[in-house]
């Protein structure tokens, strides 16, 4: 345990200091951390899943609090919790195979799908089952006789459910932990390879002689464009530099070294150039359940310009960026203000930065937001590891990866993520 604490604290520090750049890196590291948490967690024979979930939740809560804007952390915590549930469930179903399979499987919520009988960890994760899905008549009917057999109360968001259903699990404690770690490994694998999976779809979207515009830098976008290039498509890319971080320069450099025709433009020229652009392809910071996108700053402007000129606005996002939360005032609440020094030279304006002589408020504010919120109506397509989706479909896709009970990670009932 102590070394886990060290790991957790290190990671917490990094998160707090914003030393981890990019949601992919954050996601991967979170998953790795949680994996070690799980593997170090001592499990009793009785309530193994519950114990694991408690441990993950405890760590996850701290992680989320360390950087609430980095939604990937919360996403991964929730997915790990979901994995534990799924593994637990699959073991349960295997154990009580003789009983009504479909009903028992629905421990999270009574709205489960009914495709459960064959349950491996992978298939569970990928299976289209949703706690968010409204109950169908069939599931309702099936549930009715068996609901008594499911001992737990489904409504609680927290620890109660794991404990209550642990009675018949004693025989497979070790198996559960092992399976969970396997599944988390798979998750990590997914995160690291999501670029390739997304990039594989590039040929279907990029054609010869197209003009593509992007802003800032995203590894996913880079891979996506290069994949199309490797397929002998020749096209040109406009890269908006994305001041004040100038990630666009980075992307432009990468693209140039890979032989793509690249034109670097200023952010202000986006509107001027978009009329000659066939498609806007951008990366995202996070995708919310309503299909809205938390994206690098400036993208809302680009999306509006694209809409004005009817240019498709395509967002590339690995599944670890899918966030099960619905945004409220995301421009402010899910944003982060960075240092003004990126915009202004402190030396030059130092006299106005501090408090003015007679008033108590400074004359000069410098605002340097990190993210933009792109509402779903401006997005034409999401491309994820699992294919292309409409913004309106995101809630459903997200439901595949998270269980509704985990939406609130905090153990204390007062919290909200």
């Amino acid at each position, binding site marked *: 345990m102590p070394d886990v604490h060290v790991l957790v604290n290190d990671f917490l520090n990094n998160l707090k200091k914003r030393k981890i750049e990019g949601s992919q890196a954050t996601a991967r590291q979170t998953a790795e951390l949680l994996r070690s948490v799980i593997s170090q967690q001592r499990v009793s024979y009785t309530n193994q899943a519950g114990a694991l979930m408690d441990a993950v939740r405890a760590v996850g809560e701290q992680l989320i609090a360390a950087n609430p804007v980095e939604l990937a952390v919360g996403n991964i915590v929730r997915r790990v919790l979901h994995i534990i549930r799924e593994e637990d469930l699959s073991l349960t179903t295997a154990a009580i195979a003789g009983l009504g399979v479909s009903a028992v499987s629905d421990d999270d919520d009574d709205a489960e799908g009914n495709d459960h009988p064959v349950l491996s960890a992978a298939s569970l994760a990928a299976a289209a089952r949703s706690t968010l899905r409204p109950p169908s008549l069939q599931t309702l009917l099936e549930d009715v006789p068996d609901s008594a057999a499911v001992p737990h109360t489904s409504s609680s968001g927290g620890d109660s459910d794991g404990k209550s259903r642990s009675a018949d699990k004693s025989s497979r404690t070790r198996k559960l932990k092992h399976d969970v770690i396997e599944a988390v490994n798979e998750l990590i694998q997914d995160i690291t390879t999501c670029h390739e999976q997304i990039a594989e779809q590039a040929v279907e979207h990029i054609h010869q002689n197209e003009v593509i515009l992007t802003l800032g830098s995203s590894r996913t976008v880079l891979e996506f464009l290069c994949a199309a290039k490797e397929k002998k498509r020749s096209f*040109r890319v*406009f890269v908006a*530099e*994305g*001041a*004040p971080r*100038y990630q666009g*320069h*980075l992307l*432009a*450099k990468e*693209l*140039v*070294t890979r*032989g*793509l*025709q*690249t*034109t*670097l*433009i*200023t*952010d*202000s*020229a*986006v*509107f*001027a*150039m978009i*009329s*000659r652009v066939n498609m806007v392809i951008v990366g995202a910071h996070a995708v919310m359940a309503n299909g809205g996108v938390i994206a690098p*700053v*400036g993208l*809302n*402007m680009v999306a*509006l*310009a694209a809409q*004005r000129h009817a240019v498709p606005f395509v967002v590339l996002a690995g599944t670890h960026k899918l966030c099960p939360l619905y945004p409220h005032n995301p*421009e402010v609440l899910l*944003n982060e203000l960075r240092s003004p020094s*990126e*915009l*202004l*030279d402190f030396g*030059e*304006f130092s006299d*106005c930065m501090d408090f*003015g002589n007679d008033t108590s*408020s400074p*004359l*000069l*504010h*410098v*605002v*340097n*937001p990190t993210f*933009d*919120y792109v509402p779903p109506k401006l997005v034409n397509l999401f491309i994820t590891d699992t294919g292309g989706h409409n913004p309106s479909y995101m809630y459903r896709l997200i439901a595949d990866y998270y269980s509704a009970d985990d939406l609130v990670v905090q153990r204390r009932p007062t919290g909200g993520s």
Partner: protein
Amino acid sequence: MDPRRAARTVIDPKVRKVGFFAPGAPPDRSLSGPPDPIASSSASSPPIPDLSPSGNFLSPVMIPPPRHSSADTALLSSSRPVPPSPLRRDSLTSAGCIHNPSELFPSSSPTAPSSYAGRVVEFQDDPRGNSVKVATGASSFPGGGFDLTAVKTSSVPASRFTTVSVVKTMPPGLSETIVEKVGGSFEVENDRPASSKSLKEKTSKAERRALQEAQRAAKAAAKAEGSKVPSTSEAAMSANVKPTKATKAPSLKNDSATVAASEKKGGDRPPEKDRKKDVPHPRMQYDDKSRVEKAKRRAVVKQTEARNRVELFRHLPQYEHGTQLPDLETKFFQLDPVHPAIYKVGLQYLSGDISGGNARCIAMLEAFQEAIKDHSTPPEKTLSRDLTAKLSSYVSFLIECRPLSISMGNAIRFLKSHIAKLPLTLSESEAKSSLQSDIYNFINEKIILADKVIVNHAVTKIRDGDVLLTYGSSSAVEMILLHAHELGKRFRVVVVDSRPKLEGQLLLRRLVGKGLSCTYIYITGISYIMHEVSRIFLGASSVLSNGTVYSRVGTACVAMVAHEFRVPVLVCCEAYKFHERVQLDSICSNELGNPDAISEVPGREDINYLDGCTNSENLQLLNLIYDATPSDYVSLIITDYGMVPPTSVPVIVREYRREHIWI
């Protein structure tokens, strides 16, 4: 409205209607009116009296015509004072006919036909013009067409009608018709009230037929002997007209119309040829190799082409930046054709010391002032020609330093037109001083005073508690903000800025120095800040006549986001920057800045990703200077003529151009 009506009349199968139409009260007269001229030509008098009333009748329709009429008058090269309309018309027609009722318009009439013959085209341009044409075309059965119009209640057709008939009589039909038309329009102005009279004189269908036939015959006959018949008709008409006039009380409308007409007359309208000239020249396209070669041979400044030109912008000059400066400096003493003041300004443009539409324009004009002062005309040349040529060479030098802004183009046009209009009688020194004072006045009135007016207008739009957003650094907007601050209004300013010029920082510096409370943000964060903003003030390099605002690149983005957030966008632009050119996107015409400014981020040594690959074949750096903001993003344009919607820009362009060219 007018044009439409006219068209309808033409289109409708009204002839039939007319036939059945016996009872219709006022229209009938008009119907009768048309036939009259014919009758007069062929059979003479009875219908004639009707004619004039019908003409009067027409007037209500004319309401729109003030402008038209003015145009017409302009067309009629001889400018007559606007007469009581019926008379006028008569006179015109008479002129066409060669017969003059001498009292009416002796002088004008003879000239008219010849001078106007060429101008039919112009009429076509006018809404009315169409109708006129139609009339000429329809001459064979004029009566029908008129009837229809009459039915509609619009008297306009009647006037046309008369014209038509005249035409028939006249051999060179077109010129005649025009004259007629003019007359008609005048009539309209005057005659509005007379409607009730004419019922009595309806002609039956058969009669009308007969008239038509007669007209045709007359037409044929007219070719042979144009003058006589019309003269008789004319006399009759004039006689008729007078009584009608007396009977009518001129309505207010009429008065105003006539006034307008007279005014218009006063301001000459550029004749057709000039108008054509006014169509903006196509700009130099730099992908046109032969022309570029030619231009290069003339060029003073040697430019090296940029290495990685952006394919999309081949039509714009893309040169290496910074290379011309040392070259030019060394040439300072060899370049005798360029006046030192011009040279200095050119260098300042080149180095970026002077930027901003107004500053550049003022600097240029002042340099021209200097140059004109020092100008001496070689003995065998005339001042105006020599000076114009000189000016052109200066301008091309300045263009080589930096492409002209639209406002500078307008100023140059102004200056050239003044040079061209210099009275030959002036001595050289007088002419020069008058030009200098012209330039001085231009700077004063069109730029400095205009800005003051704009400030006064714009300040009324600022309220306490407002959060005003501005983009880049516009001198007009700065003045507005400072003035509002002086007035004690409490507001906050958001300065939005963008790379590579970061002009907003300069503005910010000045605003903060004056004690305004400011927020500074890059353009990428515009959506973040827009929630709190209540007004947007933007400067403009130019406003084009389709309402497009041509301004610092990024303005369009700001306006777009503001539009999305339902924040009003106010564009401040002096009217001398308006231009009749139109543009839909920012690519067809633009200016490219130094591409290297894109790859370097001053003050951020950590941003050096592009070091070493700027020479790569695949990388192009595009530094656009301007963009075009669609007019639907603009709520209001504040100019020295007041606050207008973007749709009114062409009106201002038209009026303004006339003013400054023809003063």
